[in-house]
Every structure is written in structure tokens, then in C-alpha cells.
């Protein structure tokens, strides 16, 4: 008997929270989250660089954790909160990490930037993560930037960290 490589025709229903909004999807069971975001939901900000989890361009947040969307089946995301680069700015205001990337010229071609930013935001929001420069460089090393804007990305992350911490302190002081 020859094994068929044909995927099944049936689709699955997946409910998730996408950039804060509930979404119901019909997807084939083998559909990759990255392709569903880009081709089905028309969210092109999450980039396709290798489809193998080797470049980091497709980094999104799944329940707050940075994940390579190319290594994840859409069907695995039932009930989860997915945030993409399109969901980061609030009310047209750039997220402090995006703002810092702009000021520090932390990109060139910009293709890896959504992934870099999503990884950086997850890192800055992770209370367990070490904060020294070497630890940041290590944590960010899954996000390739072939243009090599690494120094500026690292400077932007450090700057955004200061900004977020000072925001948090100010909010702490308010009643």
C-alpha cells in the first residue's frame, strides 16, 4: 500500500484572540500559523524568511511569549492570544520599542524588524530574563539581521528598557 502524502481536505475551526480581537478561523489541519496570518488574515507585517525557525523574521507573541510563527500550526493556537507587529502600537502611538528603533536607526531594510521588535518586547516584559548587555544579545540571537544593524538594535532595546522602567515608576507613584 502506498502512503498518500495528500493532506486531508477537512478544515478545523480555531478560535483565538488576535491583536486583542476574538477571531474564528477555518483552517486545514496542516496550516502554518505564519501562512494563515499572512495569506488568510492579510497581516503581512509578520515576515517570511526561512520557514524553518532559523531566522526569527516571523516572531509573534503567543500568550505573551515570543514564538516563531513558521514553526507553529494554526490549529495549535485554539484559545490563545496572538499578538503581531500590527497589534503593538496602541491608538496610533508607537510602542516604546518601535519608537526606540526609529530613533536609533535600529534597522536598514526593515524586513527583520517586526521579528526583532516582537522578540525585544517579549524580552523586556519577561521578569525572569537577565538584563545585562550580554544576556540581551544572547536572547536576541534568534533574530537574524543580515544588514547587521545589531548595535543599533541593542541600543534601542536598552533605551526602551529605560523608558518602560521610568513609565512604570511614574505609574507606581500615581494613586
Amino acid at each position, binding site marked *: 500500500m502506498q502512503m498518500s*502524502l*495528500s*493532506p486531508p*481536505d477537512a478544515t478545523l475551526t480555531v478560535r483565538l484572540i488576535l491583536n486583542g480581537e476574538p477571531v474564528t478561523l477555518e483552517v*486545514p489541519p496542516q496550516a*502554518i500559523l505564519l*501562512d494563515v496570518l*499572512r*495569506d488568510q488574515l*492579510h*497581516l*503581512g*507585517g*509578520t*515576515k*517570511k*524568511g*526561512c*520557514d*524553518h525557525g*532559523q*531566522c526569527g*523574521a516571523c516572531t509573534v507573541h503567543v500568550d505573551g511569549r515570543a514564538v516563531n510563527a513558521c514553526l507553529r500550526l494554526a490549529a495549535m493556537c485554539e484559545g490563545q492570544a496572538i499578538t*503581531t*507587529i*500590527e497589534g*503593538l*502600537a496602541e491608538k496610533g502611538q*508607537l510602542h516604546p520599542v*518601535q519608537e526606540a*528603533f*526609529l*530613533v536609533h*536607526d535600529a*534597522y*536598514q*531594510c*526593515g*524586513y*527583520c*524588524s*517586526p521579528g526583532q*521588535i516582537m522578540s525585544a518586547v517579549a524580552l523586556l516584559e519577561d521578569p525572569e530574563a537577565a538584563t545585562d548587555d550580554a544576556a*540581551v*544579545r*544572547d536572547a*536576541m*540571537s534568534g*533574530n*537574524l*539581521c*543580515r*544588514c*547587521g*544593524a*545589531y*548595535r*543599533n*538594535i*541593542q541600543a534601542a532595546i536598552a533605551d526602551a528598557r529605560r523608558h518602560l522602567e521610568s513609565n512604570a515608576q511614574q505609574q507606581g507613584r500615581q494613586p
Partner: protein
Amino acid sequence: MSEINDPAIVGHQTPRIDGEDKLTGRATYTTDWQVTGMLHGYPVPATIAHGTLEALELDEARAMPGVVDILHHRHFPELQRSPNSMKHGDQVSEVRLPFEDERIYYHGQYIALVVAETFDQARAAALCVRARYRREHDVRPGLLSGDAEGETVDDYSRGDPDIAFASAPVIHDATYTIAPESHVPLEPHVTLAEWHGSEPRLIVHESTQGIFYERNALARIFDLPAERVEVISHYIGSGFGNKLFMWPHAVATAAAARLLGRPVKTVLPRQQDMMSTGQRPASRQRIRLAADPDGRLMAIHHDSTSETSLVDRHVDACGGATPSAYACDNVATRQRLLAVNHGTPCPMRAPGEVSGIFALESAIDELALELDMDPLALRLRNYADHDPQRDLPWSSKQLDVCLKGAAERFGWAARDPRIGAMRKGDEIIGYGMASATWFAGRQPCEARVEIRADGSLLAACGTQDIGTGTYTIVAQAVAELTGVPVASIDVRLGETSLPAGPLSGGSMTTATALPAVAAATRDALDALQEIAVGPGGHFAGHDRASLEVKEGALVAKGQRAGFAEILARHRLGSVSGKGSAAPGGERRQYSFRSFGAHFVEVRWDPGISRLRVARVVSSIDVGRAVNPLAARNQVEGAIAMGIGMGLLERLEYDPRDARLINANLADYRVPVHADMPDVDVELLDYPDFRFNEFGARGIGEIGLTGIAPAIANAVHHATGKRVRDLPITIETLLDSPLIMT
């Protein structure tokens, strides 16, 4: 030509005008484009490197869900080749059309294109295409797998190097090799092709460094008037040379779209992108230096061989920078070419020269050691204060300032030249340095600038921004001449319907595009002034020459009228200016090059042979940097790529069958965040007005030259091991005399 002295905006750090779009995901790259009814293409690569395709079994793939068609040698339209002329603007990367014959010339050559409704359907079906080959065993696995020398394609000489070698007291003679490297633009190659109308028009979205070259080539290949082909590339996920000229995937995709009557998008999978869209070819270089005991160079011989493919002829001219690098009366270079069973190579950032400078600047370091001289002093002793190749003055050369300034900032004087003498903790510190250089060129260019009724301006030029910051410098140039803020300037690039602009390559875009944009800006201002001094105008009766342009307004004798007011009074939506610019006679009077110096500190752990670049200090002389924020970023990025070239990057072809075995980003290693050292880049500011009114020579490539030899020289200082083969992997240092066993 009026020099732009003391500029207000040009030469000042300017955040990119396209930055917010890139950082929010709004920027639409070619991979992101979607059009109604679009199909997805997925190529099938040959799994052998040399032989014949005997049969394709397609039944299983055809039966897969969503499959619409499969194109291949026996099912492909009759097309014409592109003439492949640089001069006529239709150069392509590979002249052979896709599926043209059944010969297999390299691993990864396309043997079919599966077209399906969705990307994953196309991929699934492509994996089910079966091919039967007849392998041939006289495979040519690569230059570095044998000792074949290839045919001579170019040579140069001055003086009589042979006589000098016969009498020279000190001779250095060594051979250097560089592994093939992959460009790895983060956005893979991608084409979206759509045909419209009964008199067909072809619209192609492509991630390309050269929209006009692709348009012209497609017009020849599909036998269309050029004006019926449009190529669009608004955002490009970088290129580094392998997106300069069109590859066969674009032809196959456009052919599929015509055949099927629907738009087709093909995004190359990363593996295929690395197999079939070019690489920096391997090179082998022999350098011979003759010197007197004081370190004066008496002769230089630079013999190079680089690879090409069996389908095309790409010459990576390694010796290009050598004849003008040092004051030396007797110089000879020779370039050979060897055809191998690899995909066709192509230019990769600082093509040729970066390879040649690795060999030459390593050899100069070795000569300094033989002479017991400081390598910096040896370079200054042989300083070429005019161009010895063309016997012309340099337009501006500040290499000595770069060398001395960077040495000072680096702390070169504190170097203990003894091998392994400098240590910190478990690591030995090595210092090395090298010079950097890249030619400065410019091309003809056209541009259009419109002044609009809302006070904003539009600047249009058919070049493209590959990430270097072209959008922003165009806005800066217009802002400089009009006083309108950068934020109010709408820059349009990346469409062949715009005035013809240059390739994004050769570090030539800045010097090529900005003078044309300036001319168009002046022409638009001229049109506005004509209206303003005419009947009913704000300055009716004034002499046009008396009008000044200030902050988006025309001003004369205390009277001021904004651009928008002038247009409104005459009920005009806009005025438009055209401009063009081209190199003139300056090249007959001067030689134009950029220069720089890199100083590198490596750390090497003799216990486990761990090697890293810890610090780089660079000074770069490119005339004026139009946007120092982006220009410094270019140099820092080039340093990262240079670390890859020096320590990490090597495409590996199996010596038995020429199959590429590491075409993925896990096995082919590019620098990551953790590899990035402390970097201190200084951009000198000596505007080169002999080159153009902005004084800018271009920045994209210079920073890569000289990094790899500076690393190799530092590695020798740390380890005592002279590594002449790139990349320098840690296992090559295990026989260092200093290794701890």
C-alpha cells in the same frame, strides 16, 4: 554645478522617512503583496549537479489538492533570451531561460514550477514531483576542491615586476583562498507577476535592486515593448548584490501567469534562494611582494582565480583595487576564471575588491613582520598620494587621516607586537589592522519633483531603497534646496513608470540619484518662480534672479509668498520639474575612491580555541555622508558581514558531486547579535565636490573591505598562526604554538 556648502539638512542625522512603515508592519514588501485570484508558485530544484534530466513523474503531484499546473521543460512557452547587456540595461543574472534544455548544470537548478491555489498546496505538490536523472561523473565540484587554474580573462601591468623580483632583498609569496559566501537577504527572492489586457501588459512585483534592468530584460524575453512591462519594488528586504539582475524564477513565474491567465507569486524557499540566486564565488589568490629593507614596495604581483558556472560567466575581479593601493612602480595583476558545477555566482557586496583586499592586506601584514616593521608604518611608507594606476590626482584621499585617527582611538601604540604577549583572563588579545577602499562611480539618472498645492513636495526617481536609506536622502536633498521639512516630502521610488534611475549597487546610488533630484528640484522652483513673477503673481515685475527660496516660500525685499499660496492664487494643483544628471569630464581629471581603516581586537582562548572579535575601530572617508545616522549603520552592518566573511561563512559543496550541503541558516552561519563586538565608527567629513555638488561618494560597500584581513592579522598576533584561508574557523588554530594541551 553649485556646491552645497554648510548645509542645514544634508550631512545631518535624519531618522528614516520610511521608518514608521517598516517598524509597524505597514511597509509592503514583495513577499507581502497579494492580488485577487493569485496563485502560488513553488519551484522544484534539481537534486544533482551534473547530468541530464531523463524524466519527470508528475501524476502524483498533479493530483494533489489545489494544484493548477506544473511547468517544466516539455510544458513551457517558447521565449527569447535577454541580450544580457549592461550597456543596454537588460543584464540578467542567468541568461539561460528556465527549463530551456534537459541538461543539469548545478544542484538547485529549476526542473519544474508547481502552481497551486495556496502556498502550502504548491509546496506539498512540489515535494511529490519525482525526477529521474542520468548522472555524469566528470563533475567540477569547485575551485577549492582541486588545483585547476582556469583561463585568463584579464590582466594589467606597469613597470617591470619581474626585474624587481629578481633583485629585491625581501620577497613575500603566499596564496590565499576565500570560500564561497551566500548573500542571505532576509527577504528571499520573490516575484509576483500579472498580465492585463488583450494588448498584454505585464506587471511584476519583484524584490530587486534594479527595476529597470528587470523591466528591459522581461521585455526582451517576452518580446514586448518595454513600456508594456512595469516592475515595482517599493520595499526590498535587502539584496547585497544578488538582487541586482533578474534570475530565472521571475521568468518562470511571469510565464506561468500568462499561461494560466491568473497572477502568480513565487517566494523562493530559503534553501533554493541559497542554491540558485548566486553567491560570492570561491577565489584563490597568489600575492607576491618585493620590498627593500626599509619597507619600500618594489613590486606587486597579484594573481587571482575565481569561479563561474557552466551556464554563465561571472568574473569576480579580485585584483581591482591592487594597482592603485600603494605607491609602487612595478605592478602586475592577472584574473583567471574556472567554470564549475555551481549555480551562477554574482556580485556580492564589494565584489572582487573585498576578496583582493583580504589577500593584499594580509600579505602587507606578513611583509611587515618579515621586515620587523609596524604594519601601520609600512602602509604609510608606501602611501599612494596620487593614483599610480591612472597617473591622476585623487579627487580627495584622507586614508592617512583614517589610519592615524583610527590607530589613536584604538590604542594601537600600546600594542605589544610579540605573539600572544597580551592577555586578559583566559584569553589572549590580538590586534590587527587593514586599509579599506572602494571605487566611487556614478551613472546617468533622471528625476521629477513636484511642488503641490498643499505645500508638500513629491520627489520621484526610478531607483530603489534596499535598506540603505535612499528614500530619506532624496527627501533630505529636496528639503535642503526648498526649506520644506523632510516630513512634508513624499518620495516615490521603485516603479519603472517613474523617471529612469540607477541600480542600487556599487555604492553609486547616492552620487547618481541626488544630483538628478537636485536638478529636478531647481527646475520645479524655476517653474514656480516663473509664475510668481508673471502677470498677477506675488512678485509680478520682479526679476526672477532676485527671488530667494526660504522655508518653503519665495522671498524678495521683505515680501514672502509660500509655495502653496502662489499655486492657490493661480489655481494650480502643482508645478513639476524634471532633472537629469550624469558623470561628466571629471573622471579624466581625477581618480575617485573612498578609503578607510579598520583596527580589530580579537580574543582567543588557547584552552578551547574559542575565537571572537571583541572590538572594531574604524575611520571611513566617503566624502560627505548625506545621512550620517544611516551611513554609520551601513558601516556597522558591513563590519558584521565582515565578521561573517572572516570567521563564519562558507557555502560547502560536496567534493564528490558538487551538491550544496549547507543551504540553510543553521548550517550556513551568518553573524547574530551575540557575534557583534563593540564598534566605534568615525565618518570623516571631507566633502568631495569634484565628484558632485553634495560631496558624497557612497557608503554601502567600503566598510566591508579590510575587515577580514584585519581579523586575520589580529588572529596571527594572538595565536602565531597565519591563516590564509577564509573563514578562519577555530579548528585551524588548534596547531597554534600557544594552544594549551
